């Protein structure tokens, strides 16, 4: 199955992950990625952004997000403790 390299980048004082890069199945919806991130940082108060611009729809498959917004072979997901952007 196709997997997407997702890199989580902490911003705005959010907890830093020791391991920040993960391979996630391309068909997984973003909702799952968010759930995964929250488990990794062990708190619910983290908000993810793509390319520091927007939060994608929970229904979007990760493969689509990578195709549309990926950079340097990865999907970069910034996460902050607040809804910082906008």
């Amino acid at each position, binding site marked *: 199955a196709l997997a997407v390299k997702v890199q989580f980048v902490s911003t705005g004082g959010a907890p830093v992950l020791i391991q920040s890069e993960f391979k996630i199945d391309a068909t997984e919806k973003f909702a799952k990625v968010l759930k995964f991130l929250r488990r990794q940082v062990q708190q619910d108060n983290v908000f993810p952004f*793509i*390319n520091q*611009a*927007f*939060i*994608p*729809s*929970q*229904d*979007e*498959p990760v493969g*689509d*997000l990578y195709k*549309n*917004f990926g950079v340097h072979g990865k999907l970069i997901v910034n996460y902050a403790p607040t*809804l910082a*952007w*906008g």
Partner: protein
Amino acid sequence: MDARRHVWEGAIPISFQLDPSEIATAPAPLPLLLMAARNGYLPLLATRIRQYFQNAVLSSPSSSTPSSDQILWFDFKGLPLKWHIPTGVLFDLLCLEPQRPWDLTVHFRGYPSEMMAPYEGDEAVKWSFMNTLKEASYIIRGNTKNVMDLTQNDQNNLWSSIVKGDMEEHDRIAAQFVGPGRIEGKPGKVPLRLYVRAVNGGLDDPFSLAPVKSWNEVMILTRPVEILRQEEGLAFTLGDALVKVLPQYFGSSSEDPEHSSSDSRVDEYGPGVQFDGTVKIQGIQPNLDLPFDWVARNLAGQEHFTHVCLWVPGK
């Protein structure tokens, strides 16, 4: 009246019925009939719906939340409606044969938070709108600068124009950031969101189409489309765009000798687009030969995404 205005002023008559299991009064309240803007969101009607039904709603003994604080949600034939999807898109997708009025059930209790994040009032809906607008902007221009640079006042007025369905007000503010985008010298892309349902058997009778029982039956995809440079006199069509983003469902007639097109058009995009399914945008089934940029300019939703519903013959 131009197409864009038709879309902006488009509305769907909805009949809201309170979930029978939540009714405390006898006789049961009559349904509430409201017009809902196509380019709007169902939660924006929540205040009026709440006011109308709240005296008839059972107060749950196990919950301390008064009905004034409960988050309303809606279902159509048992399917909870995702509130961040524009109302017109929900209607087109779930009601291929339009039902007028559209019969929805409103719930005060049991918000399906596993399925969708709750919205805390209009502010949350506004936030969702702004966020999607940023995503569209990113697709069009490669950045969200124009949206981020809006003054707080302009942001509020933009949102207000959506709530009121005021096209002029929207255009006045959006003038600051619409227009063809360019990313590193190349034309930017058109934000497209597709909602695909695979349908067994034919699509001859939309009435016999089984209702959607779960959102797993719908593929929701975001597919930015680059409008390709066209030759003199030839437009990049809606069909061309769909062939690009969903090649597995759209074929060109050159591949199938039985479907040879009588159209004498010879161009780089093939003699014509063949599709055995149904396409619906803003309540209409558009001709696939329409220029794609016309479709994007006139039929886009409020967040500048063009939402396309598709029913494809499949397994």
